[in-house]
C-alpha cells in the first residue's frame, strides 16, 4: 500500500494549499514506484499509476510518455554522486527495473490510453544540490545494444 500512502499524502498536501512539494518530491511522485505496485498488469499499470500519481488528472493533457523506476529512492539519490556528462546528466551505475509508459492513439484529454514496456535500463537524471529532480531518459546497457 506504499504508493497509496504516497498518493494520499500528496493529495492532502496539495489540497491543504501547502507550499507544495519540493522538486525532489515531485520527481519521486512522477517517477519512482518501489516496490512496483502489485496487481496492475500491462497497460493498466500505466493508466492507474499515472492517475494515482496525478500525472494524469482532469485539466491536464495526457503526458505523452512517463517512466517509472522500480528502485529505492536512495539509489537514485546516490546516482547524483556519479560523474555527470557534458549536459550535466548523471547515469546509474547499473541497470534498474523500469516501466516505460507511452501514450497511444490520439486524445490529449483523459482518459489517457497507455502501453507499458518493462525494461532493465540505466536511468539518467539531472540533479540539484545532490537531489534528483529530472528524469532525462533511460538507456540499455552498452553491451546489450
Amino acid at each position: 500500500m506504499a504508493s497509496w500512502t504516497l498518493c494520499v499524502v500528496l493529495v492532502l498536501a496539495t489540497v491543504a494549499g501547502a507550499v507544495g512539494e519540493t522538486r525532489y518530491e515531485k520527481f519521486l511522485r512522477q517517477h519512482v514506484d518501489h516496490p512496483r505496485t502489485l496487481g496492475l498488469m500491462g497497460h493498466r499499470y500505466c493508466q492507474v499509476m499515472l492517475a494515482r500519481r496525478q500525472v494524469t488528472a482532469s485539466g491536464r493533457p495526457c503526458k505523452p510518455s512517463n517512466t517509472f523506476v522500480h528502485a529505492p529512492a536512495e539509489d537514485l539519490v546516490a546516482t547524483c554522486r556519479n560523474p555527470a556528462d557534458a549536459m550535466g546528466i548523471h547515469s546509474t551505475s547499473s541497470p534498474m527495473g523500469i516501466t516505460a509508459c507511452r501514450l497511444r492513439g490520439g486524445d490529449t484529454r483523459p482518459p489517457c490510453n497507455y502501453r507499458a514496456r518493462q525494461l532493465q535500463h540505466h536511468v539518467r537524471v539531472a540533479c540539484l544540490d545532490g537531489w534528483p529532480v529530472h528524469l532525462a531518459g533511460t538507456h540499455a546497457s552498452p553491451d546489450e545494444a
Partner: protein
Amino acid sequence: MDLDIQCEEMDPSRWAELLSTMKSCKSIRLDDCNLSSSNCKDLSSIINTNPSLTELKLNNNELGDAGIEYLCKGLLTPSCSLQKLWLQNCNLTSASCETLRSVLSAQPSLTELHVGDNKLGTAGVKVLCQGLMNPNCKLQKLQLEYCELTADIVEALNAALQTKPTLKELSLSNNTLGDTAVKQLCRGLVEASCNLELLHLENCGITSDSCRDISAVLSNKSSLIDLSVGDNKIGDSGLALLCQGLLHPNCKIQKLWLWDCDLTSASCKDLSRVLSTKETLLEVSLIDNNLRDSGMEMLCQALKDPKANLQELWIRECGLTTACCKAVSSVLSVNKHLKVLHIGENKLGDAGVELLCEGLLHPNCNIHSLWLGNCDLTAACCATLATLMVAKPCLTELDLSYNTLEDEGVRKLCEAVRNPNCKLQQLILYDIFWSSEVDDELRALEESKPEVKIIS
C-alpha cells in the same frame, strides 16, 4: 448534485459520510477508490433509494463478480433509471455477464455500458449479447475494449446488432478479432438497421484484407461520423481500399483515426484526395506513420484547397523534418479552418519552427492549440515562439515538452506569458529541466497570472 472522486482510499467513516451524500446525487464517480464487493452492498441500496441517479462510474475498483451481483440487486429495482454504467477494470469475469444480461433485459433506461478491461471473454460476452437482444434493451453505447474477445464473438454480436436500432457507438478495440471476424462484423453492420455513429476497432488484428468491408460500412452508413482503425497494420494498400468508402458521397465521416497503421508517403496521394474533397472531415490522426516530408508535402497541397474543412490534424511522429516546414507554413497562411496541430516527435528543429511560425503569425491562421513536443528544439527558437504567443491571441494552448529549452528558453517564454497580449491558457512543459531560479520564476508567474496553467 454530482460526486466525483478519483484515487482516494476509503476508510469506514469516510465511506459512511459519502453514502449520505450519494442519496441525492445524479451522478456518482468513484474511480480507483479501493472499493470492494462489500461497498457494492451499500451502493445497491443507494441505487434502490435514489431514483434520480443517472450515472454510475466505478472504474478501477476490484469489485469482482460478487460485487456486481450485489450491485445488480439495486440496478434491477423498477424505480432505477440509471442511464450510464461504467465498470472498467473491475476484475469481472464471464460470471458477471449473467447479472449484466438481466440488467440489460430489464432496464430500458440504460443507454451506456462500459465494461472494458475485464476478462469477460467470448463466452461471457455471448451471454451479454442475449441481454442486448431483449426488446427492453435500448442501449446506445457499448464499450468492450480489452475484454479478451476472439473471432467467435462476431456471430453473437451481429445477431444482437440486427435487433438494436438504438445502438450508436460500438468499441471493440484491443481484442484479437482478426480479419475474418472483422469482415463478418462489417457485413453485419451494413445489414443492421442501427444508425451507428462511432466504430472503434483499434488493435483488432486488422490488415488490408478487411479494408474492402470496412469501406462498405463507410459508404453505407451515412450515420458513421467517427471511425478508428488505429494500431492495425492495414498499410498503404489497406488505406487505398478505405479511401474508396471515404470518398463515397454517402460517407459523412468527421473523425478519422489512422494512427500507427503502417502507412507511408505512398498513402498520401489518396489521403490528399480525402482531405480536399470530404468537407465533413474535421479531425484526422496519422500519428506514428512514416509519411516523411514528401508525404507531408502532398497533404499540404490538399490542405490549401478551399474545400478542406479540417480543424484538427495529428501528425505526431510521422518522420517529418525541417524540410517539410515550409510547406506546412504555407498551409497555415491560407487555411483558416485548422485550429489544432499536433506535430510533435518530428525532428523539426529550431529552423523548422522558425519556418512554421511564419505561417502561424499570418492573419489567416487560426491555430489555437499547437503541439511541438520532442521536436529537437532549443532555446534558440524561443524568441520566435515568444513573438507568436504575444502576436496571436487565438493561441491558447502550446506544448513544448521534452525539448532542451534550458533556462534561457524558458525565461523567454515566461516573458511572453507575462505580456498582457498573450492569451495562452495552457503552457505545457513536461520533462524539461530548468534551474531553481527558473522554477521560482514559473511559480511566481502562475501566481501573478492565474488564467495561465503551466503544466509540468
